[in-house]
C-alpha cells in the first residue's frame, strides 16, 4: 500500500498542475489593458496624431496635393507610380493613392478608438473633453482628406477590432461624409479650448478646419464640381458659415494666432510654434527612425554628391541644407515664371535654381535639375535626419478662407497683408465678389504653394482640366476624384466595382 500512496500523490500533483488555457497577453498592449488612465488616453490620442507621420501619408501631402497640379512635377527618373499622379493616369492599382487612402483610415481607426474608449470611459470631464475633442478633429481631418481625394467612400465611426467589422458600409453620398465631418468639427469646437501646442490642435484648429469644410462645400456647389451639384445647400449661407468659423480664428485669438510678419520665419524649422502655425506636424531630427524624423528636405533639395549645399537669400545670408537630396519634387518653370511677380519674395526667397558652397560661391556645374523650394530646409540636419515638417494648417490659409468666404469688404485687408509680407503691391481694389474670390484663390496658389493645398482648390472650383495641362484630355468630372483603390473594391462587398465616387 505504501507505494500506492506515494504514486497516487505524485500523479495527483502532476494532474492538478494543468490549468486554464486562456491566453494572457504579455509584453504588449491590447484592448484589455489600455485606455485605463489619463496617461493611456493621452498616449492613445497621440498615436492617432502619429498616423500623419508615416511616410505613406506624409508624402501623400504632395503626391496628392501638388504633383497632379500646375505647381510641381516629379523628376523624370523617379521610380514608381508618382508619374501616374503627374500625368493624371491614376488607376485603382496606383500604389501611392492606395497608401494615402489606407492611412486616412488608419488615422480614423486610431481616432475612433480614442473617441470610443475615452468618450465612454471614466475620466474627468475636462480631460475627456480635451482628448475626445482632439480625436474628433483628427477623424474629421482624415475624412476631409478622403472625401476630397476619393469622394464617396466607406464610413465607420466605431473602432474596428474584429473580423466582422472590417467591411465598413459605403456612405450613401458625399453629404453623409460631410455631415460627419461637420458634426465632428462642431463637437470638437465645443469640447476644446484655445491652447496652442506644437504638434497638436485646439479650438482654433477645429474652427479653421470647419471653415475650410464649409468653403469647400460652398465653392464646390457654386462651381458645379462633381459630387456636389446635387447637394441641397444654399451657397451663400454656406459661405457665411465658413466666414463665421474663419472669423473666429482670424479675429478672436490675437497674440496667439496671427500673421507672421517675417515670411522666412514661417518656414524656419526651429520655429514651429510661430503665430502662423495652427496645426503643424510633430517630428524631430533626434528621432531614431523615419517617422520620428523626416527626410522631407531630401525630396526637394538637389543632389550635390553628399556635400552639404547652401541656399543664398536676398540679404546675402546662407542657409545650409542636405547635400544628398533626391530632388524628386521640382517646380514647374512656367508656374514660377508666370504666377509670381519677379519681386514677389515668395519667389525670390522661397524658390531657387542655384546652390552655393559654404563660402557663398555658386556650385558649377550645377547638379540642380529644376526650380526647388526652400520651404522645407533643416540646416541642423543629422545625416538624413531632419526636423522639417509639413504645414498642416497655417493662419494665412484660414485668413484667405475668410477673405474668400466673406468677400471683398472683410477680405481686402487680409489679402493685402499677405501680399505686403511678400513685398508686392496691393490687390487691384474694387473687384466684384466673383472676381475677388478668383483673386483670393489665385493668391492661395502663391501663398500656399507646395503645401498640399493646390489640387483641392482646383477641384472645388472645377478648374483642374483647364489649369493642369496633363489633365486637359479629361472631363472635369473625371478629374474630380481618384478611383477607390482596388483592394477596397475587391475585399469590401459594400464597395461596388463600378463605383464612380459621386
Amino acid at each position, binding site marked *: 500500500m505504501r507505494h500506492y500512496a506515494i504514486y497516487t500523490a505524485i500523479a495527483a500533483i502532476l494532474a492538478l498542475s494543468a490549468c486554464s488555457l486562456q491566453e494572457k497577453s504579455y509584453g504588449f498592449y491590447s484592448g484589455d489593458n489600455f485606455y485605463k488612465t489619463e496617461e493611456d488616453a493621452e498616449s492613445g490620442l497621440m498615436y492617432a496624431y502619429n498616423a500623419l507621420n508615416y511616410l505613406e501619408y506624409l508624402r501623400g501631402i504632395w503626391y496628392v496635393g501638388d504633383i497632379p497640379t500646375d505647381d510641381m512635377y516629379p523628376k523624370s527618373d523617379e521610380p514608381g507610380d508618382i508619374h501616374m499622379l503627374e500625368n493624371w493616369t491614376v488607376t485603382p492599382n496606383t500604389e501611392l493613392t492606395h497608401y494615402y487612402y489606407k492611412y486616412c483610415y488608419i488615422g480614423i481607426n486610431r481616432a475612433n478608438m480614442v473617441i470610443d474608449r475615452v468618450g465612454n470611459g471614466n475620466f474627468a470631464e475636462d480631460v475627456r473633453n480635451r482628448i475626445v475633442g482632439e480625436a474628433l478633429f483628427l477623424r474629421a481631418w482624415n475624412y476631409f482628406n478622403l472625401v476630397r481625394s476619393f469622394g464617396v467612400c466607406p464610413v465607420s465611426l466605431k473602432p474596428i477590432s474584429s473580423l466582422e467589422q472590417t467591411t465598413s458600409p459605403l456612405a450613401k453620398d458625399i453629404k453623409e461624409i460631410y455631415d460627419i465631418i461637420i458634426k465632428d468639427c462642431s463637437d470638437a469646437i465645443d469640447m476644446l479650448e484655445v491652447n496652442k501646442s506644437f*504638434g497638436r490642435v485646439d479650438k482654433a484648429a477645429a474652427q479653421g478646419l470647419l471653415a475650410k469644410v464649409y468653403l469647400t462645400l460652398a465653392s464646390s456647389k457654386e462651381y458645379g464640381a462633381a459630387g456636389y451639384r446635387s447637394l441641397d445647400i444654399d451657397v451663400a449661407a454656406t459661405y457665411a458659415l465658413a466666414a463665421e468659423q474663419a472669423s473666429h480664428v482670424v479675429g478672436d485669438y490675437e497674440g496667439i494666432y496671427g500673421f507672421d510678419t517675417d515670411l522666412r520665419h514661417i518656414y524656419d524649422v526651429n520655429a514651429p510654434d510661430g503665430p502662423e502655425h495652427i496645426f503643424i506636424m510633430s517630428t524631430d531630427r533626434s528621432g531614431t527612425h523615419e517617422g520620428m524624423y523626416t527626410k522631407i528636405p531630401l525630396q526637394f533639395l538637389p543632389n550635390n554628391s553628399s556635400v552639404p549645399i547652401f541656399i543664398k537669400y536676398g540679404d546675402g545670408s546662407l542657409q545650409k541644407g542636405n547635400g544628398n537630396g533626391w530632388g524628386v519634387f521640382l517646380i514647374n518653370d512656367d508656374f514660377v515664371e508666370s504666377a509670381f511677380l519677379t519681386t514677389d519674395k515668395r519667389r525670390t526667397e522661397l524658390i531657387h535654381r542655384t546652390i552655393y558652397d559654404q563660402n557663398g560661391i555658386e556650385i558649377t556645374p550645377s547638379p540642380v535639375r529644376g526650380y526647388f523650394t526652400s520651404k522645407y530646409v533643416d540646416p541642423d540636419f543629422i545625416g538624413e535626419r531632419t526636423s522639417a515638417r509639413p504645414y498642416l494648417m497655417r493662419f494665412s490659409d484660414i485668413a484667405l478662407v475668410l477673405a474668400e468666404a466673406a468677400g471683398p469688404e472683410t477680405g481686402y485687408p487680409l489679402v493685402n497683408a499677405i501680399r505686403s509680407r511678400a513685398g508686392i503691391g496691393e490687390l487691384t481694389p474694387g473687384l466684384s465678389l466673383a472676381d475677388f474670390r478668383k483673386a483670393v484663390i489665385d493668391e492661395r496658389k502663391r501663398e500656399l504653394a507646395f503645401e498640399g493645398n493646390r489640387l483641392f482648390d482646383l477641384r472645388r472650383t472645377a478648374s483642374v482640366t483647364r489649369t493642369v495641362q496633363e489633365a486637359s484630355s479629361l472631363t472635369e468630372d473625371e478629374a474630380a476624384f481618384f478611383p477607390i483603390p482596388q483592394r477596397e473594391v475587391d475585399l469590401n462587398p459594400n464597395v461596388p466595382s463600378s463605383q464612380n465616387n459621386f
Partner: protein
Amino acid sequence: MNKKILITLLLAAVFPLVAAAQNNTVSGTVFDVDGTPMAGVSIVVPGTQKGAVSDENGKWSIDASPGEKVQFWFIGYETIEQTVGPDGTVPDVTMAVSADVLDDVVVVGYGAVKKSDLTGSVATVKVDAISDLSATSVDGLLQGRAAGLQVINSSQDPGAGATIRIRGNSSINGSNTPLVVVNGFPMGDAGALTQINTSDIESIEILKDASASAIYGSRGANGVILVTTKNADEGKTTVTVKHQTVVSTLSAPLDIWYDPMLMAQVSNEEMVNAGLNPLYIGQTIGGIYYPSLLEIQNGEWSNTDWTKLCLRTPVTNNTTVSLNSATAKSSLNLTANYFGDRGIYKKDNYDRLNINLGFTYKILPKLTFSTFNVFSLTNRQVCNGLEYGRNPLWPVYAEDGSYWKAGPTDFSHPLVALEDKKDKTKGRDFLVSAAFDWEIIKGLKAHTQVDYRYKNTIQDIYLSRTTSQDAFDNGGIAKINTTRYQDVLTETYLTFDRKFGEDHHLTLMAGHSFNYEQNRGLYTTARGFVNDVLGNEDMNASDPELRQIYNDGYYVSKLLSFYGRANYSLKDRYLFTLTMRADGSTKFGKNNKWGFFPSGAVSWKMHKEPWMQGASKWLSELKLRASYGISGNQGINSYQTLDRYGSEKFYHNGAWTTVIGPGYEAGRTGANDRYFVWGGIMNPDLRWETTAQADLGIDAAFFNSRLRLTADFYYKNTYNLLREKYLPLSSSYDKIWVNDGTVENKGFEFTIDGDIISTRDWTFSAGLVFSLNRNKVKHLGDAISSGLSTDERTGMLYEVTGPAISMFNQNASILAEGQPMNIFYGYRVDGIIQEGQNPGFIDPTALLDRPGELKYVDLDGDFAITSKDRCIIGDPNPDFTASLNLRASWRQLSLSIFLYGVFGNDVLYNGYTYSPRVKAKRWTPDNPTNDFPSLNSIRQYQLSDYFIQDGSFLRIQNISLSYEFLIGKKWLESIRLYGNIDNLYTFTRFDGYDPEVGLDGIYWGGYPKFRKFTAGIEILF
C-alpha cells in the same frame, strides 16, 4: 602522421598480451535447446586464432587459460560466452535459438510493441550504422537511413543542423519539421538534436503514418522521431573511451580568379560591352588604382592568394568517455562528450561539451525510479563570409605594414574582418527528466514523468569601425543578446495489458500530459564608442543616444492533453489499433481551444493463417497494414490570435513619448521595406493545421527473416493551412491570419534488407531504401483576399515565395495551385543569340536582342519579351531518393559502403553568370558559343531556365572500415580502430560545387562540400 604512431603503439601494446597467455586445454559438451548434444558449434577464444568445432556428441576441446573467454557460435542461435574458471574448466553449455528480428521491441509513443505487432508505419534506424560518423546533431546522420525520411545537410558551418522532413512538405507558413521526442520528452523541431551523444542512443524510431504519429496530436502532423537512450546491462560495468578526428578537405577547386590577367581582360570586356569605360587601363577611380593589362603582364602587380589567408583545413575532434554499470537494483549510464567542430574559415569554430547521465533504481520490487539528465554547453564563434575571392591584384599589406585598402570605403579586407569582428554565442542547455514506473497489479502499469528543460544563450557581437561603413559611421556597433527558454512537461499514463484466453490480447493505454513552454529574450545594441578597445565589454561607454534595448516579449504557451490507445489482437493474426488525443492549447484561438486527433489501424498477419503454413519454410512474415488518422500542426505563435496594439515614439512637449493604440506592425513591404504592414486584429477562430493521412503497407520476411521487405503507400492531405488574408483598406488593417489552403503529399516507399552471407567468419548484408513523394499545392485560399497572382497565359493562380534573389531582382519560387511547392517560375531561354540570327523578339531598348545575349523565348508570340512569356521552369522537389547500404565483415574486420542519391530535382544556380569559371567561357564574336552569354557588367538578368540545372546526384556518401581487437582481459575488453571517408565522390551533372541544396532548390554558391576523412579509436574497458 599522428595516426600512424598511434596505431603502431596500440599494436605494440596489444600483441604481447595475447602472446603471453598460458596454454591449457579446456573441453566440454554443448547441448541444443531440447537437451540433445549439438554438433557443428564453433568454439573460439576471442582475440586469438584458436578455434574448434563440436563433434556429433557435442564434445569439443580448445587451448585456453583460466580467465580467458570462450565463445560458442551457431547460425540462428544466440552466441554464448563463458569464462574459463580458475580450475581450467568451463561448464556445459546449452545453446538458445536467437530471437528473431521480428521479436525486437519497437518504441512507439507512450509505449513499445513487438515489431511483428506494429500496425502503423514505423521505421527503426540501426544506431550502430551511424555511430562512427561525425555530425553536430544526431538527426543529421539519418540521411538515407529510413524510407520516407528526407535529410538535407546543406550547411557546412560548424555546429550547423540539418533540414529534416518526413513524407514531404505540408505547410506553407507553419513548421514542416518533425517533432523529436527523447525518452518521452518532446524536444521540438528535428534537425538540431545536439544535446544527446550518439553513443548513448539505444534506438531511433521514425513514426510516419497517422496511426503512429496521431498520438502526438497537434504536434504529430509532420511525423515524429523518437530517440531512446541506453540502459546498462545488468551485472556489468564497462568504460568506453572513443575518440575520432575528422580532417575535411574541399571536394572541388574554388571558383575564383586565379589568373589576374584573365580577370582584368574579362572585367574590361564586360565594361566595354556595357558601354562603359574599362577599368584596367592604368587609372585611379574612387581612390582605387586599376593597373593596365600591360602592367599586369609585366608582373608589376601582386597575385595574392586570398584563400590562404582566409581558409584552413578544418580538423574536428570528437571524444566520448562513458561509464555503464548495472546491478539487479540499479543502473547507471554516464557519458561525457567533447565535440570541437572547425569551419573552413579561420576562427569559425563550434565547441560543445555534453554530459548525459542516466540512472535507474528499483525502489520497491514493483516501483522503479529512473532519471535522465543532459548538460550541454556550447560555444560558437562565428567568423564566416571572409572575402577569399578578393581581387588578386590587391596586396595584403600597404607599404607601412598596415592592411592595404582599396579605398576609404573598402571594408572587405579579410584579415580585418578576421581580427576586428567579434561574434560569439554561448549556449547552456540543461534537461532533467525523472520518471516512476509502477506495476500496480499484474498487467496494469503506471508511468509518471516530469521533465524540465532550461536553455540559455548569450551572444556577444562587436563590429569595429574598420569592418563596415555602418560600423564606421556609428563609431562601432556592440550587441549583447540573451535568450532563455524553459519547458516543463508532466505526464502520467496507465497501461493495461492482458491476454484473454489463447486468442485475445488487449492492451489499453490512457494518459494525460501538461506542457508549459516559456521563451524570452533581451537584445541590446550600443553604438558610438570612443575607440574599439573594449569591444562590447562596456556597453555604457557608448553614445547614450545611440543605444537600443529591445525585449522580445515573453512567450508562454501551455498544452494540456489527454490521450489513449487500444491495441487488440485476435488470434495473433488480426491486429487493431485505435488512438485518440485531445490537445488544448493557449496558442489556439478562443473559439477553438481543443483539437481532437483520432486514428485507427488494422493489420493482418497473413503468414499465421493456417492455409499459409505450407509456406512457412521460406516465408517468415507476411503482414498487411492499413491506417487512417488525423494529426495537427500547431503552426500558430503565441498571442497570434489576440488583438495587439502597436506603439511608436512621438515628439511632444520637447521630448519623446511612447504612444500606443490599435494597429501593430506585422511586417514591411515595398522598395527598401519602406511601407508598414499592419496587423494586430484578433482572430479567435484561428486553429491548428490539420493533416489527414491514409497508409497502406506490407511487411514481408523470407528465409528465416534473412530477407526483409517493407513497403508503404500513403496519401496525406493537409488543410486549414495557416495563411494571411488581406483585409479591406478601410479596416485600417492589412492582414489577418486565417486557416485557408490545402496541400497534398502522396508517395511510395520501401526498404529491403538482406543478410546475404552469414557465417561465423563472414557476413555480408545489403539494405536498399527508396522514397518517392509527390507534393501538390491544391488550394491557396480565396484568390482575391489572399492576393494571388494569375499567370496571364494559363490562368494559374500563384503567389511569390522564397528568398529574394538580387541577381534577378525578384523571388525565385512560387506556390501555384495544382503544382508542387516552391516551383521556379520565369522565362525560357533557347541558347545564345548568334550573329545574323533572328532572336524571335524585338527589345524596345535594343539591349536584349543583340548577338551574345540570352535568347529568351517569346511564348505568347507577340515578338516582345513581357511578363506574359513566363512559365514554370523547374521543380526543386526530387522524383525520388534512394540509398544503398552494403556491409561486409570478416571476423573483427568490417567494411561498409553507403550510397545516397537524389533524383529528378531542379536546382536554381544563383549567380551562375557571375562565376569566374563561367565568365571565362563567355560568348564573343570569335567564340560563338551557344552556352554562355557575352559579358556585360550592367545586364539585368531575368529569372530563366538558363539558370536551372538538373540537381540529381548519386553520392558515395561514406566508406567505413573498422577492426576490433578482442583482448578479453579484465581491465581491457577490446580496442576498435576505424576510419571512414565521407563524401568520397558525387556523380552529378550539376555545374556548381554540390547539388545538395535546401528544399527550395536554390544554390547560393558558398564553398565546395567537404570530403571528410575520419580516424577513430574505441576502447572498451
